[in-house]
């Protein structure tokens, strides 16, 4: 374990303990550490920032009520992912309308070649509109495995299913996304010729 990671783990442990004892500022620290992860995942799952904010709020309130359950600090992030997926897929919070959320890459990574940038941006837009069309469980598997970078085993643990199921979901989902993007890109390039 690196020094920085050690420090982070120790701090995490410290804040969980303090928050558990009723220190709300320690709880706020825990939120600051994990809020991006929770809101980002909720946005990917719900495709709508306002609903994602509501879901993130619910996730953190549930975290506060369940602080007592964390024996190991390493349990926190998987628990938050699991709770985010559960809250987002709660029957009451069905995707209302696919209001496009910002799926542009970090502006720092912009390539210098404008044509290349434009093509990459179009490809990215198509990938994310394909993700929006996926059924819930497939979308969750892709968001966790391919966007959030969890391993297949981690994604399976978060989703409460087997690795085999997750593998099947991501392979089906990737195939659908590839097909969707390839069809539209070939149509676009055919039209421009």
């Amino acid at each position, binding site marked *: 374990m690196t020094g920085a990671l050690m420090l982070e783990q120790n701090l995490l442990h410290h804040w969980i303990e303090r928050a558990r004892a*009723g220190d*709300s500022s320690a*709880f*706020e620290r825990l*939120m*600051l550490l994990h*809020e*991006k992860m929770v*809101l*980002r995942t909720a*946005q990917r799952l719900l495709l709508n*920032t306002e609903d*994602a*904010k509501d879901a*993130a*709020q619910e996730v*953190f*309130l549930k975290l*506060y*009520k369940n602080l007592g359950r964390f024996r190991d600090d390493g349990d926190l992030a998987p628990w938050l992912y699991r709770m985010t997926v559960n809250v987002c897929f709660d029957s009451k919070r069905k995707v209302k309308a696919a209001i496009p959320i*910002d*799926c*542009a*890459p*970090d*502006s720092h*990574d912009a390539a210098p070649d404008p044509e290349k940038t434009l093509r*990459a941006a179009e*490809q*990215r837009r198509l*990938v994310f509109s394909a993700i929006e069309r996926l059924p819930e469980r497939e979308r969750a598997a*892709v968001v966790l*495995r*391919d*966007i959030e*970078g969890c391993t*297949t085993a981690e994604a399976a643990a978060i989703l409460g299913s087997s690795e085999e199921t997750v*593998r*099947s979901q*991501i*392979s*089906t989902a*990737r*195939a659908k*996304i*590839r097909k969707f*993007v*390839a069809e539209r890109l070939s149509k676009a390039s055919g039209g421009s010729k």
Partner: protein
Amino acid sequence: MIHPREEQLALYSTGDLDPDALERIAAHLDECLRCRECADQFYQLQQVLATPAAEPDAKDLQNVRRRVMENLPRGVERRWRFEWAIALAALIALVIFLNRSLHSPAPLPVVPAQPVAAALLAQLPSSPIAIKELAMPRRASPRAPGLGSIALVARPDREPLIKIATTDPKIVILLTPSSPNEERTESNE
């Protein structure tokens, strides 16, 4: 030529297959242009997905944080503070009670309306049993860290009683000042 299924090529792009399948597909891709193009598209897809998207808006994050902090259930914290305050008050009352019963054994001749309970408490003998009885409810119920209230129950034709309520509604201690050996713990169950 048997081509691998598209789903297998999708898993191949992240190595999510057993070693035999990975080797078989690698060998096939060396020979098959069509599958190689498909596999390349899955690689590109992985690159797009792995490129970090813009993080959530700072204003949105702040908004969520504020809403959560405003809605934190503070009841738990407050209730415990309240119960500990009661326990502390009960402890102080116990110390005063002990002090009085040790240092003022003589009954007070005339007592005004308000300090009747205190005077009756003062009349109690300094029996260690009475003190044990007072401490008992705390052990009986781990959720009850102290005493609730002390009240004098005056009845016209019978002797007055000192009623000590604990934070556990099931446990009430009744003391009769004139007969010190008859303290009893009443259960409301």
